[in-house]
């Protein structure tokens, strides 16, 4: 009994910082409809800022308080800079670009934090006043846990008062429902957006600061917390503060008990609970159906997708040219080009669900990575031959997409983006933590191609053939009745349903096909590199794929290839020239998004229909 109480208290204390991050994310989304990927980075910066401020005043209780205050204020300031400098220009852009742009901030902050605070974990020196033990049923719990337990409900109550009792709060709630109408009543929304974003950033900063006494500040905090915060927001119900608190407590409690009772399957447990909640309550525990409804996709304005005659000729000529490349290119070039082909397939599979299906996936690397791991594990544990391993890849990735997709296709827009990301992060954690099976962060080595495919030119031809066939299949599916039904579901789900299209099923199938296609590329990738590491499943890999699709053009037949080639070329050039490739990539993303605020192709292909949505 006492064990249950103590674990429950620990869980409650854990929930505090998670709640602060999630509730800020939810508030910002409610008003501005932007999912701020950089929210986890604000949390991380909060922890670092608190560390430095605390050290500056000599630690102790004063240091802790000064740290928390500094983190809150500094992040509110940074929020101001980010909102005015970047987000303000993006409110009219498609969701996908908004998400990618805020991810660029994640990249910039990572380099910034590395430059300022270095790669080492920074542990706040013990604060005696906070670690004063309190005896609960014979167990010693630090006083600080009780501070945290009280803090969550306090912040919740404070926010509730702010939103229900102040004019600012009433305006925020009104703007969450109907921004246009708020403007028509004479209210300048810009300062509403800015202020709510600053509040959200400040809460994230405070969240980081209060977490510091429990865990050291480190460079992996940002993506770790953002994935959990997404889960909390989706489970709790978007826009519901009480829901965010409930979900944060639920997740933290599951972790607290899971780690003690079933350490191996804690993540699976988390996953299972989330799954059950989303099936029973698709909008989360306390969420209501999205008032704004599904956003019409601004992509792929022209339904005809069968390649035009001229394009076909160009493709055939291009293929002939590619077949001739090994006659004069060296081994390194061939390897780089094989990699480009593989990424082209990855990007094409993502383009398929984004463009045709209108589904935003922020965790597509999960399927690429599952393919890579599927192939590598088949070789490592089963001594499978290369062809068998390459067949295993799409099976594993497709199965993963089938399972995850079953949940993901129930949501749309940013909700779906968050859920796909959460699944990818869970998969990454499994690969990262399950040492016995996946080798953890040591990865799996020695995944070499069979002798017949070992030479760079042989592997080049293999990649070219597999990728060409897979992309051709994807395009074939896009132009088939299935593809048209998928588009119908994307553009007008209700009407497509009324015409007898099972929209959810179509989306599910498409998601699975895309997963299998990405996994095919992942299998090749494992053999190209001779090894697999958890990185292939991680969020940055998913974002790389999105950037490739955006660079190449979301509705262009050759987009994935062009995007993959441009991106890989840039990455190789930049990372050989500087350590700051993340910053540069972030800068490139922001530049692309700001120069083409309506989407690269929207700018070229036609204007959005009138009126701000």
């Amino acid at each position, binding site marked *: 009994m006492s064990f249950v109480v103590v674990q429950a208290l620990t869980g409650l204390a854990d929930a505090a910082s998670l709640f602060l991050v999630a509730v800020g994310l939810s508030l910002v989304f409610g008003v501005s409809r932007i999912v701020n990927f950089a929210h986890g980075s604000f949390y991380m910066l909060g922890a670092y800022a608190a560390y430095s401020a605390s050290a500056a005043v000599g630690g102790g209780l004063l240091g802790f308080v000064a740290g928390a205050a500094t983190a809150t204020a500094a992040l509110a300031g940074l929020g101001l800079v980010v909102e005015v400098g970047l987000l303000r220009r993006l409110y009219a852009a498609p969701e996908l670009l908004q998400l990618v742009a805020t991810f660029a901030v994640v990249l910039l902050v990572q380099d910034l934090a590395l430059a300022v605070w270095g790669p080492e974990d920074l542990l706040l020196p013990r604060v005696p006043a906070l670690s004063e033990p309190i005896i609960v049923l014979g167990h010693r719990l630090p006083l600080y846990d009780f501070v945290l337990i009280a803090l969550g409900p306090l912040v919740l109550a404070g926010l509730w008062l702010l939103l229900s009792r102040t004019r600012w709060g*009433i305006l925020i709630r*009104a703007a969450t429902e*109907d921004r246009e109408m708020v*403007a*028509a009543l004479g209210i300048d929304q810009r300062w509403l957006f800015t202020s709510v974003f600053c509040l959200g950033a400040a809460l994230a900063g405070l969240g980081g600061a209060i977490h510091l006494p429990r865990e050291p500040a480190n460079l992996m905090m940002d993506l770790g917390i953002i994935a959990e915060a997404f889960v909390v927001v989706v489970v709790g119900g978007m826009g519901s503060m009480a829901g965010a608190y409930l979900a944060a407590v639920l997740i933290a409690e599951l972790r607290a008990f899971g780690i003690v009772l079933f350490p191996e399957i804690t993540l699976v447990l988390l996953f299972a609970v989330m799954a059950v909640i989303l099936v029973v309550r698709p909008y989360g525990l306390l969420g209501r159906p999205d008032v704004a409804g599904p956003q019409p996709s601004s992509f792929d304005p022209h339904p005809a997708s069968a390649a035009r005659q001229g394009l076909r000729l160009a493709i055939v000529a291009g293929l002939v040219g590619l077949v001739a490349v090994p006659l004069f290119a060296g081994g390194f070039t061939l390897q780089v080009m094989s990699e480009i082909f593989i990424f082209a397939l990855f990007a094409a599979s993502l383009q398929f669900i984004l463009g045709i299906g209108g589904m935003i996936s922020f965790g597509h690397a999960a399927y690429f990575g599952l393919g890579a791991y599927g192939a590598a594990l088949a070789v490592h544990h089963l001594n499978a031959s290369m062809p068998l391993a390459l067949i295993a890849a799409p099976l594993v990735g497709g199965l993963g997409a089938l399972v995850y997709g079953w949940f993901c296709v129930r949501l749309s827009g940013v909700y779906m983006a968050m859920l796909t990301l959460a699944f990818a992060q869970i998969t990454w954690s499994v690969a990262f933590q399950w040492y016995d099976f996946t080798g953890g962060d040591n990865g799996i080595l020695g995944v070499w191609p069979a002798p017949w495919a070992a030479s760079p030119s042989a592997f080049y031809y293999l990649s070219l053939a597999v990728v060409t066939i897979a992309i051709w299949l994807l395009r074939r599916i896009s132009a088939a009745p299935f593809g048209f039904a998928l588009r119908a579901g994307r553009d007008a789900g209700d009407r497509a349903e009324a015409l007898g299209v099972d929209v959810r099923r179509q989306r599910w199938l498409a998601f699975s096909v895309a997963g299998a296609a990405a996994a095919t590329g992942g299998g090749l990738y494992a053999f190209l590199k001779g090894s697999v590491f958890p990185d292939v499943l991680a969020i940055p890999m998913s974002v790389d794929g999105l950037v490739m699709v955006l660079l190449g053009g979301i509705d262009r037949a050759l987009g994935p290839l062009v995007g993959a080639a441009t991106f890989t070329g840039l990455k190789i050039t930049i990372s050989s020239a500087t350590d700051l490739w993340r910053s540069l990539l972030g800068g490139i993303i922001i530049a692309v998004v700001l120069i083409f605020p309506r989407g690269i192709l929207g700018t070229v292909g036609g204007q959005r229909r*009138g009126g701000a949505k």
Partner: protein
Amino acid sequence: MLSVHGLETCYGSAQALFGVDLEVADGEVMALLGRNGAGKSTLLKSIIGLVHPAAGSIVFAGEEIAGDPTHRISRHGIGYVPEERRIFTGLSVAENLAVGRRPPGGSGAGWTAERIYELFPPLSAMRRRRGGAMSGGEQQMLAIARTLMGNPRMILLDEPSQGLAPRVVTALANALEGLKRQGMTVLLSEQNVRFAERLADRATVLETGQVRWVGTMAAFAADIEAQHDLLHV
């Protein structure tokens, strides 16, 4: 007070207004009539800035407002009551009014919640009710009331009688007549000629994005042929 000249508005590549001219004098109720798709709502949205006109000018109280952001146009003294009413369903009646509240620009007492409740007595009994839990007629009253709280010099009403029961329409007309007596300038988009007739001094009739008829409301109400041609009634 409001003069619109050569207004053209497009939705993407589809043009909805083709050179619309419109004059509304101070203290006047102008009816804007026309069938579905004639461009009435688009004209009102263009004036308030929710859609941006491609060409033409909109001068309100001596100032050019075409192309300004919506909130600034609203602050010039134009109130907008949309067709769908668009009250904030999660907010209470009192909160809805609070969102609209804006002190009067010049002298004068201005609208207060108490004066609003006098004009729309049913609202007074449901100050704490959520907007989403109100009937269509009550929502319409609240939508107008919310706009009045900003002390506009002119209001744009988009089909206020649409979808309301006859008894509610009568109550609404009474309230609007009260507003008119207080000297409010109104641009009233309507399909219901009888409703417009009770309130309007003059009428402008739109068809496929162009002005087809301008004159006194009484003259249009008497002209059965014009009504048949332009409204198909």
